[in-house]
């Protein structure tokens, strides 16, 4: 239905034009390279792995550098900027960058080097700080820690693992007196002591102290601790200063951010170009590119290539067994849900593009699940605003996604008016709380309140589901006709359509069902009889034919019977649409709950009550929109994927992946004079 026709194209050109041709193809982005020429005596392929790895290295450097830059000099971005899309640059600007390339690469490497130095400096500071911590208890010692002694004395400088006073130490060491004992510092955990002993007494004193778990300090220094501490502090200060200067240097590169981004994109494009270069077959003077191209682009590309270069171009229809890539092509209204189809699977060979058929149902189902005019208007306006503000630069994917929610918003508004939802019952709550209005609802629903009449809503949901499912079967008929499988049309599609349709009539004619669904229909007896006959006939067809791939008649019958059992699947598919009622009620009633909570304090607190009302309203309804829009999105997808696609669509196509500019920040605009 709506897929672009693909052609296989072969371009033969001279090797001297190689770069220019490849760049042109990349800018155009309409060709998927798929080379099927084997290497032989004449045609060879180039080894590009070395060049590519150098590009990848540059890309990574630029990426790291811009990340580091972002850390020191954050980029100012609004929340909405993610919708802006890539910046457009002209082809000249792109070409001119090759001069700036070296400079950008130097900046990137310098930023990375600075960052590395900062990291090392920070580690050094930590080390020095730790040393300072260890030296601190020794501050009051005015001789170096590693002092050995004097001519006749030897020192013992170290730590005892609990608090000792000078007297206690004197007592402990009494028998080796005279000794000089100093307590440098004492705390609960440790006591730092300086003991000077005559050389001959040193051994036994040390023994005694060891029994008291004496330990030499873990830092050593040839200067008095106080001086040492000052020195360490000075070094820390100077390293800090260095770090500051380096950080400043990084920050000063903020103006080069664009260049770093450009470097990434530029090298990405070069890398992609070289990848293609590695795939194409080249002889001494000629090279060949083959691939797929959408038919509508052929004339344009051929014209441009032939005007500029000496080329020979062959275009042919792809063969039957080829795995041709798929591009979906739909108008703006239907195309918006292409991402939903893509999320399932692209159409395989012989299948139709279900997007257009699905889109209408998609918007309607989404609208019924959210069904609130207030929420719908907010959604519509928000999407319209973003789409309009970024209309020039927005990426196609983002645009489609936002348009989808725009249409969903419109549908939500419509169903909100039908079912009387305006931020739940906000207007009624305001009117009754502050203006004493008793005659609610202010705005009656155009159709009915689902809360007051849930069975009617249920019947409506299931009827809609039946239409949706039947559409699926009809698409299957169409698809099988296109594949010229007329036997299957009758056995696998038409028989089911008849069975479901006649089954529905029979069910509706039952009094019990009519009571449950709260509808009264009088189906004439003869129609009922005909429906019964059709149901039996179509069941028989299904039993006899749906197992036709088995030769054994008994097996065939069993398989057919099992296939008929699939009717329960159809029943549960239809029941599955009851989620339209449930989710619709959920968003409506939660809205009401928020309104009720908000209005509770309103009366008793006057102006403060109004403020509380507004705050609860804003928070509550924001939350409700978010949760229920998510729910509606997920469950609409489910209804499409499981209930609808299950009837006719398997997918399995491959997405068209053209040789193009897969850039992140910039897109190069084809110059008009150039083309």
């Amino acid at each position, binding site marked *: 239905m709506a897929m672009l026709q693909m052609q296989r194209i072969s371009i033969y050109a001279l090797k001297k034009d190689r770069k220019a041709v490849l760049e042109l193809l990349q800018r155009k982005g309409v060709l998927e390279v798929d080379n099927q020429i084997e290497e032989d005596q004449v045609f060879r392929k180039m080894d590009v792995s070395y060049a590519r790895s150098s590009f990848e290295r540059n890309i990574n450097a630029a990426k790291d550098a811009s990340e580091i830059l972002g850390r020191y000099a954050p980029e100012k971005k609004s929340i909405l900027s993610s919708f802006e899309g890539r910046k457009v640059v002209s082809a000249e600007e792109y070409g001119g960058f090759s001069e700036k390339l070296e400079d950008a690469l130097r900046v990137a490497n310098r930023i990375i080097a600075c960052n590395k130095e900062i990291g090392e400096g920070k580690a050094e500071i930590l080390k020095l700080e730790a040393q300072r911590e260890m030296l601190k208890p020794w501050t009051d010692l005015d001789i170096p820690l590693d002092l050995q002694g004097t001519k006749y004395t030897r020192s013992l400088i170290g730590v005892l693992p609990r608090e000792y006073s000078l007297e206690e130490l004197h007592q402990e060491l009494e028998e080796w007196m005279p000794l000089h004992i100093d307590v440098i510092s004492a705390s609960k955990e440790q006591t730092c002591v300086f003991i000077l002993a005559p050389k001959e007494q040193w051994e036994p004193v040390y023994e005694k102290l060891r029994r008291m778990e004496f330990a030499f300090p873990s830092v050593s220094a040839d200067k008095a601790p106080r001086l040492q501490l000052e020195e360490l502090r000075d070094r820390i200060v100077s390293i800090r200063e260095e770090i500051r200067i380096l950080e400043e240097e990084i920050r000063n590169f903020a103006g080069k951010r664009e260049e770093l981004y450009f470097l990434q994109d530029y090298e990405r494009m070069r890398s992609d170009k070289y990848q293609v270069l590695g795939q194409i077959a080249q002889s001494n003077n000629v090279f060949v590119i083959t691939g797929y191209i959408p038919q509508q682009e052929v004339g344009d590309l051929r014209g441009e290539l032939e005007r500029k270069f000496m080329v020979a171009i062959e275009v042919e229809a792809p063969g039957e067994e080829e795995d041709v890539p798929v591009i979906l092509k739909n108008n703006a209204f239907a195309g918006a849900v292409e991402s939903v189809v893509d999320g399932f699977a692209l159409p395989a060979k012989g299948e139709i593009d279900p997007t257009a058929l699905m889109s209408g149902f998609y918007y309607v189902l989404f609208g019924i699940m959210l069904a609130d005019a207030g929420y719908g208007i907010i959604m519509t306006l928000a999407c319209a605003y973003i789409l309009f503000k970024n209309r020039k630069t927005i990426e196609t994917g983002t645009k489609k996604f936002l348009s989808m929610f725009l249409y969903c918003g419109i549908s939500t508004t419509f169903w909100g008016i039908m079912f009387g939802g305006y931020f739940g019952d906000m207007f009624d709550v305001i009117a009754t709380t502050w203006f004493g209005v008793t005659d609610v609802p202010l705005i009656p629903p155009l159709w009915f309140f689902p809360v007051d009449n849930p069975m009617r809503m249920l019947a409506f949901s299931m009827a809609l589901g039946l239409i949706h499912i039947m559409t699926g079967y009809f698409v299957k008929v169409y698809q099988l006709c296109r594949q010229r499988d007329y036997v299957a049309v009758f056995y696998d599609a038409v028989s089911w359509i008849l069975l479901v349709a006649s089954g529905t009539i029979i069910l509706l004619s039952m009094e019990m069902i009519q009571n449950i669904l709260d509808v009264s229909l009088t189906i004439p007896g003869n129609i009922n009889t005909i429906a019964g006959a059709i149901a039996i006939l179509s069941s028989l067809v299904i039993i006899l034919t749906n197992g036709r791939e088995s030769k054994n008649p008994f097996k065939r019958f069993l398989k057919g019977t099992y296939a008929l059992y699939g009717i329960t699947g159809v029943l549960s598919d239809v029941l599955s649409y009851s989620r339209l009622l449930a989710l619709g009620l*959920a968003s409506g009633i939660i809205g009401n709950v928020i309104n009720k909570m908000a209005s509770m304090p309103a009366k008793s607190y006057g102006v403060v009550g109004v403020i509380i009302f507004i705050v609860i309203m804003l928070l509550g309804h924001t939350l409700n929109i978010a949760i229920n829009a998510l729910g509606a999105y*997920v469950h609409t997808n489910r209804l499409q994927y499981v209930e609808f696609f299950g009837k006719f669509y398997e997918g399995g196509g491959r997405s068209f992946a053209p040789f193009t500019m897969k850039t992140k920040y910039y897109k190069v605009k084809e110059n008009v004079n150039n083309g």
Partner: protein
Amino acid sequence: MDKYGIVFALLGAALAALGAGAGSAKGVGLAGEAGSGVVTEDPSKFGKVLILQLLPGTQGIYGLLIAFITLTNIGVLGGSSDFGIAKGLLYFAACLPMAIVGYISAVAQAKASVASMGILAKRPDQFGKSMIFPAMVETYAILALLISVLAILGVSGLSI
């Protein structure tokens, strides 16, 4: 004895909020743990991970909804609460599907969500499909919600 009607009705409402809420709390927590792992590897997936984490959160909201409809119908939030024990028990029964299915489906859905985060981590392009697996579980929470809503609205119309 007739006054106990409202006790049972309120018990039902509380159970609906309690069961479904507890299930969702457990489920969202479970999914959050797995989600943090995915985001540690690739912070740009935060938005999608959040969607998967939120999926088992809806049961809690359905529970709240059932509790709220019950509260408004039995007159706890104003209005008359003049009904007998039979009607109270009916309300109680009406709340049970949401309470029980809400709890179980939230936890089960969370497990599917956690598994789907594996898809998101390894094949981010398959996000559309990864969302469907947890959503399949939610169907049963929705069916329970539907029955509870219909039953409560139906019971309030009965004259016993």
